[in-house]
């Protein structure tokens, strides 16, 4: 009996000593053993902090990076001219599924309470073949191991989203060069391994250096005169002299003139035959579902395809745009409709080429962002 008691006591004491030692020297031990893990997680913190602090975060694709010197580009205009903090997230090829995955990885109470999300939708995401969703290289660019770790071991998002993302990885696993642990194992396999799962959660939590209660970013309506800004936008835009569509000279010479010569102008919009098989549309629906739990309604901006250039099959594309619009508005999310339903209504200068916003287009986007997140105070 004495031996049994002695054993139990020795075991408990040894456990206490190990736990205490680990707790006291946790940082030293983990810093020594886990530098790559720390670096990978550190990379995730900046976007998470911005979302959790209520900074406006604009998710989009190529329009955010293709003309970085535009005055009214949101990141330039808000941060430099208005001195209002705004972050952009994305580059060419980022589409609904990549955005959904990032938001799912960060999902938690603080984000649901504070996040101010703008999503710039490009009609071109929904065109092409049925299999038109986010491509694997772009998914891996935004869902690198640190983000996948957050998704599986920290995010409070419903498991259905984790499984959906895991299924995407599984479907594409043969196209991943030397996939490491986080891509190789299925979410269910990870969940079933209870002990290791809990240790991983503990490790992620230990390395999470982010500010749990970041100072909230607040905004005040800057009370702008948008008509003057639109005039200014037209003035500062480089005028088109070789075409009447408002397309930049360089772009027109390089891309449009050759098409005219070979008789493929105006362009045709290739649209998948059935909407329920349109992968991008399906991804968008899941994204809309995820955003339902956000306290501050997100803002969606549907951009345009130049109506004088993309003339053929435009009615079919308009039907898709109309369906997307109704789905977004069903959820009472903000929506800026920049799609040209009639080409006569298109304002020259809204686009700088055939798909990307010009200065005038950005003024309209900025106006909507301000109106959506910074309503004028009632007098």
């Amino acid at each position, binding site marked *: 009996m004495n*031996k049994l008691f*002695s*054993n139990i*006591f*020795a*075991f408990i*004491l*040894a*456990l206490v*000593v*190990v736990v205490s030692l*680990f707790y006291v020297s946790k940082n030293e031990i*983990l810093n020594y*053993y*886990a530098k*790559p*893990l720390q670096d*990978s997680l550190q990379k995730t913190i900046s976007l998470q902090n911005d979302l959790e602090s209520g900074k406006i975060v604009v998710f989009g694709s*190529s329009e955010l990076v293709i003309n970085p010197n535009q005055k009214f580009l949101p990141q330039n205009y808000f941060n430099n001219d208005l001195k209002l903090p705004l972050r952009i997230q994305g580059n*060419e*090829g980022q589409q609904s599924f990549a955005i959904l995955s990032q938001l799912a990885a960060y999902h938690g109470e603080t984000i649901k309470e504070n996040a101010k999300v703008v999503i710039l939708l490009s009609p*071109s995401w929904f065109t092409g073949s049925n299999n038109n969703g986010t*491509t*694997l*290289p*772009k998914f*891996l660019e935004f869902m*690198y*191991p640190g983000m996948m*770790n957050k998704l599986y*071991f920290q995010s409070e998002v419903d498991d259905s989203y984790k499984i959906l993302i895991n299924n995407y990885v599984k479907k*594409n696993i*043969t*196209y*991943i*060069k*030397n*996939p*490491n*642990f*986080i*891509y190789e194992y299925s979410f269910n396999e990870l969940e079933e391994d209870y*002990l*290791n799962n809990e*240790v*991983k959660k503990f*490790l*992620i939590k230990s390395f999470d250096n982010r500010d749990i209660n970041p100072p909230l970013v607040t905004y005040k309506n800057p009370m702008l005169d948008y008509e003057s800004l639109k005039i200014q936008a037209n003035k500062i835009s480089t005028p088109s002299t070789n075409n009447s569509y408002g397309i930049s000279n360089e772009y027109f010479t390089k*891309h449009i003139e050759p098409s005219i010569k070979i008789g493929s102008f105006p*362009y045709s919009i290739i649209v998948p035959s059935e909407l329920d098989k349109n992968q991008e549309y399906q991804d968008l629906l899941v994204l809309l579902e995820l955003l339902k739990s956000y306290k501050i309604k997100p803002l969606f901006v549907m951009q345009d395809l130049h109506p004088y250039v993309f003339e053929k099959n435009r009615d079919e594309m308009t039907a898709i745009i109309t369906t997307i619009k109704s789905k977004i508005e069903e959820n009472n999310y903000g929506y800026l409709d920049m799609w040209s339903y009639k080409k006569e209504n298109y304002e020259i200068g809204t686009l700088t*080429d*055939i*798909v990307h916003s010009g200065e005038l287009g950005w003024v309209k986007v900025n106006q909507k962002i301000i109106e959506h997140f910074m309503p004028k105070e009632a007098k």
Partner: protein
Amino acid sequence: MKYFFRTFLIYLLLIIGFSFIIIDENIDDLSGQEVESTVEFVYEAF
């Protein structure tokens, strides 16, 4: 007392060993380097 210290030492070593194995394995799992796709992203500039 001697018996107690001996068992304490054994348990201490066992727990340290087990913790080391399990933490090391999990840090290794989580520390994966960024991976690449075998298919290349082609940006269609329209």
